[in-house]
């Protein structure tokens, strides 16, 4: 997946209240899907679909042991967000440097 596509996937995954709540749960401890589904007024398949979206963004990893699916939070995608921000920080700092050079010389 390209960096842009990955960013899209991450922002898409994070743009949903239920998925953020699922991540908040997983931030505390890895959990089984059945446990994750309990506090939500939705079916197991519906929760499973949300988990798949989080998985495809790389925010959740799933370990399968027999019929038990254990989900864990993965923070690696935040490095992608950091990289996006770092890119623009560099862009703007360099641009303002150029603006200073241009305007301060009275050109």
């Amino acid at each position, binding site marked *: 997946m390209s960096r842009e596509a990955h960013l899209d996937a991450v922002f898409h995954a994070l*743009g949903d209240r239920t998925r953020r709540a699922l991540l*908040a749960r997983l931030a505390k401890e890895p959990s089984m899907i059945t446990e994750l589904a309990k506090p939500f007024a939705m079916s197991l398949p519906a929760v499973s679909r949300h988990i798949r979206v989080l998985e495809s963004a790389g925010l959740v990893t799933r370990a399968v042991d027999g019929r038990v699916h254990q989900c864990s939070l993965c923070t690696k995608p935040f490095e992608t967000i950091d990289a*996006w921000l770092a890119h*623009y920080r560099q*862009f703007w700092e360099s641009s303002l440097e150029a603006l200073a050079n241009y305007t301060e010389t009275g050109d």
Partner: protein
Amino acid sequence: MTALVLVVRRTIRASRERLFDAWTQPEQLKRWWGPKSVVCSDAQVDLKVGGSYRIANRFPDGNVVSISGEFEAVERPHLLVYTWRVGSEAGAAERVSVTFETRGDATEVIVTHERIASAAIRDMHEQGWVGCLDGLAQYLAA
């Protein structure tokens, strides 16, 4: 209240009017716009609220990428707000705000760059769980 924003500041020894005009006039934009490696090969600016702009960025490899958007606020000499799209990216635009504040005989230029989708991150921050993620925290401005 927190928001995911990138803020870059620089104090420049020039008047607000000088800087505002340098930022908004095509002929001047071509003289300074972009990082060192980028040449602004063309700039079109319709400087009014709702007006659009397009800036062509030529990279060392010859590639030209346009940045474009519409103005949401045009208040010379202290404020500019515009949407920001890179290339032909579809979907929600990012937003850039530029303020020019007098600091003695100089001006502080403050660029605030935000991505609309970042509201999701802000919500998570309010839930408290990203607080432990180093690196992200520094970008969460109060």
